[in-house]
C-alpha cells in the first residue's frame, strides 16, 4: 500500500475515533484535509463564519452525542480564548482543534508571526493539552491519542500541524 499523506492519516484517525462532524474556517494548508472530509459521506462537514461559532457547534453536537473536530489556522485560534475559557474548559467539553500553524518557519506576514506567538501561551494558560505534529510518522499516534484523551478526560485539546509536516505556506515570487 502506498504511504498515506498526512491528511489521509488524519481522516482515518477521525473515522477510527467516531468523529462525525468537522467544522472549519478554511486555510490553504488544511485544504487537502477539508477536501478529504467533504468528499467522505461519513462526515458532516461545513464552513462556519467564525471559529467561535465552529467551537459552539461542535460543543453542542458533543453534548448531544456526536463527536466533532474544528479545523482552523493560527489566526483563527487567536479569536478563541473566550469560547475556550467560558465554554469548552469549564463545561468539560472535549472540543478537539486541529490548527494549521502559520507564523513560523518562513512566515512572510508579520501579523501572522505575531499572532502565532499568542497561541501556545493561551493554550498553556488554560492548561489545555496540545501537541505539535512535525513528522509523518507522528501523525497517527499523536492525533489518535490526543482525541482519545480529550474524550476520556472530557477536556478540549489542540493538535498543531507544523510546517515541518505540511510544508506550510511560503511567499511565491
Amino acid at each position: 500500500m502506498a504511504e498515506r499523506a498526512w491528511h489521509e492519516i488524519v481522516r482515518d484517525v477521525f473515522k477510527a475515533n467516531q468523529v462525525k462532524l468537522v467544522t472549519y474556517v478554511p486555510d490553504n494548508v488544511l485544504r487537502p484535509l477539508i477536501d478529504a472530509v467533504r468528499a467522505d459521506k461519513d462526515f458532516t462537514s461545513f464552513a462556519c463564519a467564525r471559529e467561535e461559532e465552529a467551537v459552539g457547534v461542535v460543543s453542542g453536537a458533543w453534548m448531544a452525542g456526536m463527536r466533532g473536530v474544528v479545523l482552523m489556522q493560527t489566526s483563527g485560534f487567536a479569536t478563541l480564548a473566550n469560547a475556550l475559557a467560558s465554554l469548552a474548559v469549564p463545561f468539560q467539553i472535549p472540543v478537539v482543534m486541529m490548527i494549521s500553524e502559520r507564523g513560523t518557519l518562513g512566515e512572510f506576514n508579520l501579523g501572522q508571526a505575531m499572532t502565532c506567538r499568542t497561541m501556545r501561551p493561551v493554550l498553556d494558560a488554560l492548561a489545555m493539552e496540545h501537541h505539535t505534529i512535525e513528522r509523518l510518522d507522528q501523525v497517527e499516534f499523536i492525533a489518535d491519542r490526543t482525541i482519545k484523551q480529550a474524550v476520556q478526560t472530557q477536556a478540549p485539546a489542540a493538535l498543531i500541524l507544523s510546517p515541518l509536516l505540511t510544508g506550510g505556506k511560503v511567499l511565491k515570487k
Partner: protein
Amino acid sequence: MSQELESRGRGNAKVLNRFDITKRLVAKLKHEEAVVGGIGNTNFDLWAAGRRPQNFYMLGSMGLAVPIALGVALAQPKRRVFALEGDGSILMQLGALTTIAMLRPRNLAIVVMDNGSYQITGSQPTSTAAGADIVAMARGAGIDQSAWADDEAAFEKLMDRALAGEGPWLVAARIDGEPAVEQTERDPAQIRDRFMRGLGVKK
C-alpha cells in the same frame, strides 16, 4: 417546504415580557425538546421557568447559544431544538444565521428577545434600538421562516408552528426592560452533565 411568515414587523410588534413568553414556550414542550439559553437574562428566565434536564444554560460565551443549538440539532435530528438569544448576543454572531440557512436543520428554532439594549451590562442601546431589524437580517441570511411576534398569541402560534413544522425558524419578540426573575445556578460541569442525561446521551 419553507415559506415566509406574516407579521406586522418590529415597529408594530407589541412589547412582550421575556419571562412570560419563556414560560409560554416551556409550557408547550411535551417531547423533551432541547432549549439552549444564551448569556445572562435569556438563560436566567429559562431557569426560572422551571427545571428541565433538556435545558442548557450557557454562562459566558456571548453569542454562542445559536451555534450550540445548531450542534444539538445536527446530532439529534429527531429532537426539536430551541435557542434563546438576546439582541446584543445575536448581533455578535450574525454569521451563524447564514450557516443555519445553508444547512437548513428542520428541527431548529431561534427565539430572539429584543429589548433594544445590552440590558445586563447597564442597558446601553444596541443597534436594534436604532432600527436594525433582526428578522430582516435573518431573512437576508436565508432563513425564510423568520417573523416578529405581533403579540403573545402570535408568539404562541409561531412556537406551535416551530414545534410541528419543518424549520429552521427565527422568531423575534420585542420585550420590555424587566430584569430576569432569578439567576441560574452557575455550575458548568453539572449543567453539562444534566443536559447530556436529558438528551439521553448519558444514562
